[in-house]
């Protein structure tokens, strides 16, 4: 068996998408070949004082060329350092791909995807793969304002509905408001829901999906130390006793980040 290892991935592209959101393509070799939609990679900062990984979801997978796209928001010193890396000059250390992603192979015909803010990127690979599997994807994207990102990328594969907090673009309000406005689940004969975004949104999505009896997959975030399931730093409470931990806690990094909404307590 081939061992997984930390790689030094060349930066192929690193461009600004909106005020504080950047898109990076890295040369990831076999890591890209094995990557699954909804998984994440652990990126490391090139600074001896910053030891822990920055988990970043996989936004697009180019398996043939061994490349991964990562879209990230600059929120702290680590992501700031990432935004300064120069394509074709710099490299970044990465471990991955990690976790369990969206079950793109197991859904029904028509999937509704809710993405909020920096939770949007991982849904892009999901809609691509859903489309490849011959399924319909409808995406509701929530932004703070009209300073959006990735919208055109989504339009290539799915119908896109936009909600903004300030109403400067699309529907004013939450992604749930936007979905309700057009009765999305009913209109598109939705069979499954995928979602990634801030916790209040995920709670709304959980309610939206469960109240309609739809399998609802949500991607969670938690502070991580290892990213590989060994430190128990990143747990989320579970309804039932977790298979691994033998208590009502599951590891977001290893058993998630994507969970069926009915399994976890959020």
């Amino acid at each position, binding site marked *: 068996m081939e061992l997984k290892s930390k790689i030094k991935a060349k930066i192929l592209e690193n461009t600004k998408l909106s005020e504080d959101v950047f898109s990076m393509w890295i040369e990831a070799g076999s890591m890209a070949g094995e990557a699954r939609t909804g998984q994440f990679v652990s990126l490391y900062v090139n600074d001896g004082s910053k030891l822990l990984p920055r988990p970043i979801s996989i936004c697009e997978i180019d398996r043939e060329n061994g490349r991964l796209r990562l879209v990230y928001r600059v929120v702290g010193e680590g992501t700031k350092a990432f935004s300064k890396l120069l394509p074709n000059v710099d490299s970044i250390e990465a471990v991955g791909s990690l976790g369990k992603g969206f079950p793109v192979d197991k859904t029904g015909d028509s999937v509704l995807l809710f993405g909020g803010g920096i939770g949007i990127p991982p849904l892009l690979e999901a809609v691509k793969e859903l489309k490849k599997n011959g399924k319909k994807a409808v995406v509701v994207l929530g932004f703070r304002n009209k300073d959006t990102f990735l919208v055109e990328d989504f339009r290539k594969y799915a119908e896109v509905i936009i909600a903004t907090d300030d109403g400067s673009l699309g529907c004013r309000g939450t992604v749930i408001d936007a979905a309700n406005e057009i009765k999305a689940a009913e209109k598109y004969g939705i069979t499954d829901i995928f979602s990634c975004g801030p916790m209040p949104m995920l709670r709304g999505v959980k309610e939206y999906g469960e109240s309609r009896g739809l399998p609802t997959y949500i991607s969670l975030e938690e502070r991580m130390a290892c990213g590989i399931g*060994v430190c*128990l730093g990143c747990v989320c409470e579970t309804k039932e006793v977790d298979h691994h931990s033998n208590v009502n*806690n599951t590891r977001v990094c290893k058993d998630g980040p994507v969970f069926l909404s009915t399994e976890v307590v959020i």
Partner: protein
Amino acid sequence: MGNMSVEIAGVKLKNPVMTASGTFGSGAEFMDYIDLSLLGGLTTKGVSDVPWKGNPTPRVAETASGMLNAIGLQNPGIDVFIKRDLEKLRGIDTVVMANVCGHTTEEYVEVVKRLADNDVVKLLEINISCPNVKAGGITFGTNPDAAFEVTKAIKKYAKQPVIMKLTPNVTDITELAKACEAGGADGLSLINTLTGMKIDIHKRKFALANKTGGLSGPAVKPVAIRMVYQVRKAVNLPIIGMGGIMTGEDAVEFLMAGATAVSVGTANFNNPAASVHVVKGIEEYMSKYGISDINELIGCVE
């Protein structure tokens, strides 16, 4: 290549590099990343008599050259640990040390009894020093009398050598070391984490739900080296040194300070293969300086 094997309380390790409890899961999780048989040994996550749920999240936070954790010793309990986790390690050619936690002497003893006849476990490490458990735990670690008593109680039932793991959050660690020695300990592990705190000034909240957590990583290495040196001068027990080991050179520093073996902890989060890199780094050091037996290095700085 020179001899790298060392002995801790009669147990031979092929090299002095182990992994630190709580940073290495139950060991098996690392099989995707490294060949476990390259390690001198590994230490499993603290296990208690019944499953523990641990603390609320956030449980971890990054700090300068280190991190804070307040996992709260979440573990599946001794039953699942023995039946499932230890079985995964059976047959792997490395020394398994089981780390034991509890709130009371009885709880420690219960776990030790259950492990007594398990032949996968070759060493017991008793965590009397976790700062994240409110009852019991920490008082054993800071009070010499309590440390003496719990060591004695455990020794009555333990069939494997007993390594007592000490906390650095004390005025004089040699008092604790001596108490454990008097209680019959076969070795000492040090250091556990230093109690610390971080505040998120933007959210005006503690970074950890538990408020305080344990500081580990290279930040604490100077404190760990000092304590290993002090303890080595105070007792006649083998020491497993840890605290901030990232490289083979860091490990050699612990050996020179007086540790017989070392554990790699936080570094596993920086690179899942860190422990194996530490082994290789020691090898390089030995060949660079033509050291024929690693035991020459142990405590060589006076």
